Every structure is written in structure tokens, then in C-alpha cells.
């Protein structure tokens, strides 16, 4: 370990930055936004992105897993290790949801961010109760408000949504045959 530079404006290569990223995510032990990481790691966004990709690759086949939900990153256990982790943790995870809940989750996951009105248009029924329950379980959250009369809430999925499905990112969702991301 060299300590020749005093660290403040040290230029790190991607591997070095990936290691620093790993250390930060391990100690913070929560979802961290790339914006926060730019500040913590004193590096510009493209470098953070490269480091995240490098760390994600380096973790393949290991017990840990780099999860990404939009602009948030979190170090979690690999889905392949869920049995052993559950044995030690005995955690409370949302068990089976209702068919209506999965439907609503699917619509939100593929079309986010979107309003309750749009969800109800697709499902053809009132979704107030099911949205409330999904929000309470931490699987969806308000991501903003639409700039139209009444400023309706916009819904999106959360990190926890990825966690109960063991997905690396939203890109790993089964492909939607035909997605028009323009409507909201």
C-alpha cells in the first residue's frame, strides 16, 4: 500500500474505484444513489457507472450481488444464496400477494412512472386498495406528481421490488412484448 499521494484528488482507475464502491456500499448497507456516490467517491458520473459495471462483473459467482434500481445501487446477497440466508435471518418478507397485486405490480414495473388513473384504465377496475397495500409493503412508492390539473401521484417500483424477485435490475424483468413507454 503506497501512501505517497495525500488522497484528496487521487485519480483512481476503474478497478480501484470499484473496490472503493464495494467498501462504501458494504458499510452503508442501504441503497445509495449514484448522485450520493459521486460525492462520496469524489468521481464523475461516468466513472461511477464504469465502477458499478466492473463491480457487478467481479461479483458474478460470488455470494454478493450488486443490485440496481434506476439510480440506486445496493450490495445484497445473491438470489442463489437465499435459502441459506433465510435460515440464519428468518426475515419477514412479503409472502404471496393477491393476483390483483401482481397485476398492478406488473403494470407499474413496465410502465413506470404512471398514475393510478392509467393503472385503472388498463385493469378496468378501481385500484385504490391494492395500491395502498403495495405501498405499505414497500414494493411501490410515489416517484413524483404529474404536472396536470390535480397533480396526480406517479407510482414506481422500489429496491424492495427487485429484492423479492431476486432481480439485478429492472432490465432483468421478462421482456414486455410491446412496450410503449410514452403514455403515462
Amino acid at each position: 500500500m503506497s501512501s505517497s499521494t495525500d488522497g484528496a484528488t487521487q485519480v483512481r482507475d476503474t478497478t480501484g474505484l470499484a473496490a472503493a464502491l464495494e467498501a462504501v456500499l458494504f458499510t452503508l448497507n442501504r441503497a445509495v444513489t449514484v448522485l450520493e456516490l459521486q460525492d462520496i467517491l469524489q468521481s464523475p458520473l461516468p466513472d461511477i457507472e464504469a465502477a458499478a459495471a466492473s463491480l457487478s462483473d467481479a461479483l458474478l459467482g460470488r455470494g454478493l450481488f450488486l443490485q440496481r434500481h434506476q439510480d440506486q445501487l445496493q450490495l445484497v446477497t445473491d438470489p442463489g444464496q437465499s435459502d441459506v440466508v433465510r435460515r440464519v435471518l428468518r426475515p419477514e418478507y412479503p409472502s404471496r400477494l393477491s393476483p390483483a397485486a401482481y397485476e398492478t405490480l406488473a403494470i407499474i414495473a413496465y410502465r413506470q412512472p404512471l398514475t393510478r388513473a392509467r393503472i385503472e384504465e388498463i385493469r378496468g377496475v378501481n385500484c385504490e386498495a391494492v395500491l395502498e397495500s403495495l405501498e405499505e409493503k414497500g414494493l411501490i412508492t410515489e416517484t413524483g406528481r404529474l404536472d396536470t390539473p390535480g397533480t396526480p401521484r406517479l407510482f414506481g417500483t422500489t429496491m424492495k421490488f427487485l429484492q423479492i424477485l431476486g432481480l439485478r435490475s429492472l432490465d432483468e424483468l421478462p421482456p414486455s412484448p410491446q412496450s410503449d413507454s410514452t403514455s403515462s
Partner: protein
Amino acid sequence: MSPEITAELERDPVYLVRTPAFDGPIELLLTLAQRAEVDLKAIPLAGLTDDYLRAIEQDHPPLDRLAAFLVIGARLVQLKAAGLMPQATVGEEEDLQAWEDAIKGRLEEYKRFKELADSLMRRHASGRFTFAGLLEPDVIPQARVQVSLDAVASAFRQVLDRLPPADQVTVEMEHVSLAEKLEELRQMLARQAQLNFSAIFRHARTRLEAVVTFLALLELIRIGEARVAQVSAFGEITVHRQERKEAE
């Protein structure tokens, strides 16, 4: 409506409209109304549907006929409503086609999401979760993993759940004194500086006894002779003997 359906309807009308302004098959009424060759304002649609409801009760027409009437009826209502509102314009055949396509599109969209929902459900059911790490108690000062009152209360609720429910009330003179329980707990802690929360209630035979034991524990905590701790999240709560700090 597709041409085949229209052709079939013409051979065998869904319903015959008999009003002073129009007399003939309802399909023809729709076609003429769309071309603005019939004034819908002169035709009481409510009366028309009432008549049809009566016809349903008498003849029990097959489901496809009912559906056809519904589609035509809805379109007539839409046209009439549009006619009553001066600004609104109602499109011609292409518009009807677009309207049909929109409905078909919506059904397909819903079906697609239903399939996606099934795949999410299967994925969730496979239990391949990911987990964030838990805080390691050695690293975090003991003060930060102090047990909350809620955790103690819920542990106590678990103790109560194991004891027989208080459904049948047999009134027996039962005497459990707080002072006795306090003394008992003190002795337990004197023998063993650290006890499991559940161990304290091992000898409780009734809910009353458990309640009094719990009160005694709270009292010991209050006066500083015991404290409770939880070594790890989801772990057992332990009760520790503590030297009482004299004189505040």
C-alpha cells in the same frame, strides 16, 4: 362492426324498432343515424331499451344477440348524446373502426400484463430473494441496539399466546403478589446474571401469573436492578442483572 357481422344482422335483425319516427331493424337505424339520415332526437332510446328488456324476458335471445344489441344500443346513445351537444362531432365508419381497435387494443394490453403478472408471481414464489446485510452488533455500540418497548411487548405477547386462552372463566381465588414475583425475579437474577426473556415465564401457569411476572420485570427495569438487551436483530431478548445506582 366487421362487414360479416353486419351482413348477418341484415338477414336476421337483432331487434325491430317500432316508433313513429322510425320503423325497421335497429341495425338500419344505426346506419341511417350515422349518415344523419334519421334524427335520433325524435326517437326515445329509453323506451326502446325498455321494450328490448321486455323482449329478453319473453324470448330469451342467445348471448350473441344480446351482445349485438348492447353494441348497437351503446353506439346509438353515443350518437344521440353527441347530437345533443352542439360542439361534439361524431365520426363515421372509420371512427367506429378506431373505437373497436382501441377496445381490442386495451383487452390485449390487459392480457399481456396478466401474463407478466403470472411470471412475476412465479418468480416471487421461487423464493430467490436478495437480502441486505444486517448491522453487526459488535460494531454498533450496545446503546444503539437497546430493545424498544415494542419489542419487549411483542415478546410478552408471544409468551401469552403459549398460555391457555382466557375463554372459560373459572373463578378461583388466585393470589399472585407483585412483591413475591419481584423477589422471585431478584433471586433468579442473583443465581444467574443473564436470563432469557422466555425463561422468566417458564414457571408461569396462568395468564395472571405471567402478567404479574411481566409487571415485576418492568418494575426491576424501572428501579434499575435489571436491563433488557437483544444481541442481534430477531434474536432472543435477554434480561441482565444490574447493580442499582443508589441516590440519583
